[in-house]
């Protein structure tokens, strides 16, 4: 028996009782995460307002330590690091959002088609999904990056090509279940068109699932882009966080000098905070969107 309650109790006597109450709001860490993400996004979007230096032009001495003029110091060319960080955030933002949307929506649509149509279409799509799941994504991405040349567009295409599968699978399973529901069958027998069914019945159910999936996707896309940039396969003039780390680590003598303390640490922190925040937010939303995930019993 499940107890559904909209009321939130901040404190309660026994832990199990609190667990039984279904939350319709974000937990404290979820809110923290959301706040952090919004801050980062805002800083990146408003990058020119937040820094007076250019991320591409030499504006200070080489490898200067943090100071008033250069809050995070400079890299070996003399380019301000704070500027690079906030402009580089745009790359992560774009990659994350674009991939999430493309893969999420694309995956969702394909999942719906597969689940609803069934038959040969479904089998073909499932085959495709299986193959993509088995392909080791990183090696393929490395080779594709070498082929298409390093650029943000390459990443976006390559990441999306791999990411739509998970969403498609989840959505398909849901659609398979939904398809058998009584009211759907009724609507069908009344002559409801596919589009109507999609719009009226499926989408509201699928949407929360897909949204949560997209947040997951965004996180993974950001990590994948950082990883590839870190290996040196990213767009080398893009200032993405992974790339800043790559340049820092390529510096001869990075282990013996103090430069890493600002050069390596700041992009690392930015990346870790963003990814962790996305993950926590994703988990929280998951709990809200699908109570089944919580596995609660009474």
């Amino acid at each position: 028996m499940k107890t559904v309650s909209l009321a939130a109790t901040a404190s309660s006597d026994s832990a199990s009782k609190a667990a039984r109450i279904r939350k319709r709001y974000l937990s404290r860490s979820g809110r923290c995460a959301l706040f952090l993400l919004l801050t980062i996004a805002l800083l990146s979007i408003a990058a020119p307002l937040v820094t007076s230096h250019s991320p591409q032009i030499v504006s200070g001495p080489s490898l200067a330590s943090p100071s008033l003029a250069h809050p995070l110091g400079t890299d070996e060319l003399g380019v301000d690091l704070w500027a690079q960080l906030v402009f580089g955030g745009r790359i992560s933002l774009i990659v994350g959002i674009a991939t999430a949307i493309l893969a999420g929506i694309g995956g969702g649509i394909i999942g719906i088609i597969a689940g609803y149509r069934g038959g040969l279409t479904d089998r073909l799509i499932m085959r495709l999904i299986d193959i993509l799941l088995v392909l080791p994504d990183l090696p393929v991405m490395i080779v594709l990056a070498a082929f298409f040349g390093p650029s943000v567009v390459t990443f976006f295409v390559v990441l999306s090509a791999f990411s739509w599968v998970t969403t498609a699978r989840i959505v398909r399973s849901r659609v398979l279940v939904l398809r058998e529901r009584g009211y759907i069958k009724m609507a069908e027998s009344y002559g409801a068109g596919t589009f109507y069914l999609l719009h009226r019945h499926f989408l509201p159910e699928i949407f929360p699932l897909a949204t949560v999936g997209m947040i997951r996707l965004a996180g993974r896309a950001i990590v994948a882009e950082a990883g590839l940039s870190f290996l040196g396969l990213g767009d080398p003039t893009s200032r993405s966080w992974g790339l800043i780390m790559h340049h820092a680590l390529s510096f001869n003598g990075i282990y013996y000098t103090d430069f890493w303390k600002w050069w390596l640490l700041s992009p690392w922190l930015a990346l870790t905070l963003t990814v962790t925040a996305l993950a926590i937010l994703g988990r929280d939303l998951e709990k809200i969107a699908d109570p089944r995930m919580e596995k609660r019993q009474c």
Partner: protein
Amino acid sequence: MNKLLDILFVVLLFCVAGCDDNQANQANQAEKYDESTAKSPAVVDVIHLEGGDWGYPTPFAHYPRGPGGFKMALIFDSLLERDEKGLIPWLATAYSIEDKGLTYRFRIRPGVYWQDGTILTPEDVAFSLQYANRYGATWSYVHHALDTITVENDSVVVRLREPQAVMLDSIGRTRIIPKHIWEKVDNPKEFTTPDAIIGCGPYTLSAYSKEHGTYRFTAFDNYWGPKPRVKTIEFVPVSEPILAYENHELDMVGVPPDVLPRFQEIKSNRIIRNPAFWGYRLLFNMGRVKVLQDVRIRRATALGIDRQELVDKIARGAAIPGRLSILPPDHVMAAHDLADLPLDPVQARALLAEVGNVPAMELLCSGQEVRIAELLRQRLGEVGIDLSIKTVDGKSRDARVRGRDYQLAIIGHGGWGGDAGYLSTHLLGDVFDQNAAPSASGIDGFEAPELAALLSQQATEIDADKRRESLHQIQHLAIELVPEIPLFYTAGYTAYRPATYDGWMNMYDHHSMQHSKLSYLERSGAAAKR
């Protein structure tokens, strides 16, 4: 908040780690190494150098990339060897050049033994040259360049298809392999049995591991030449060469400029500045981009690039700014009295104003050069040349340069200390084959008949002084015409402990002391210091 605490904890770890290291290390070093520079013993048991897998050390199987060829040279001798000043007789006791450079005669040294006990004969030498002529070695200098090779008593006579000044060096460097082993081999690249590493050089290969990148060389007791001073050479891969050197796990290390002070404090270290024989250059594709045919634009580019800044920021001071006369200052044929173009953005802008409209162009480079490209883009943008940077991976960049599919490109490579004949490929651009004669037409779009004539002439000029004159003229023209811009030549630092071993030397055209064969041998007999 928990998550934030975790992240903060990690950041704290970072900071703690960063704080204590430098001072502590320096204190330790000062205590331990108090020895003054003593002389090393005459014969040393073992030397450890930095390893890495560069292939099985036969002349045909080592990798093209990396120093595999130098390891191979420890096992296989050649007709001539290189010391600090030039070429010296080695397996050839004497040589002569006849027929205006068409014929080379080498007298072969008697009493040379192969590492399997048999004796070396002039037939072996003739066979090796024929073999290298037929199947190019990995570092090949004579592929398809030799016409006939004959044996006359104790000499080998080589006849070329056409005279070329560089061929003395090229033939001299070709490795001599035992005929009785290689005559049955028709796939030399894949011949990697223990037989394949039988040479007549001072060392034998006693251990090799591909996946770890380790080599061990042991001195050959029956070596014909100067006695090896090092009994065993071990190449060991290490995670951090600097740390390994300080822990006495390595006996020689390249020192990045930022770490130099730490090394200079220790009295037992000797630090040498390497000659600058590796460099980057900026290429102009005059064939494809018509506007680059105008010499004013090329001069403006040279005036607008701050080569010293590149040295300071990219190489952190461990380099020499490029010279428009192409040859680096340490080169034996470098001209030292020519006036180079200075950094002068004002004049650059004036020149560009004369030209009028300069279209935006694309600068091609690989990941290794992207920082250089960024600085170039900024400085050239300030004088009025707009560049966009295109990065591809190294091999793709090479392919595009070879296929002339670029507008401007940066490429980096070694060998700037080698025979000055390479100026043909730099200045007339087309020919990357060391053995082909320079074509008179050169790169499409680059009209330089005087330069082409001079280059042809020096290629066949045997007289050293006359050749030097031609090369002087060529370098002068290079500064005027700016067909390419050498950006900088790297000149790193190497540290070693003389008390452990002090035999290190540099060949006249190379920058790395551990690559020289003479570094490991007594400087007597054929290897006596000149």
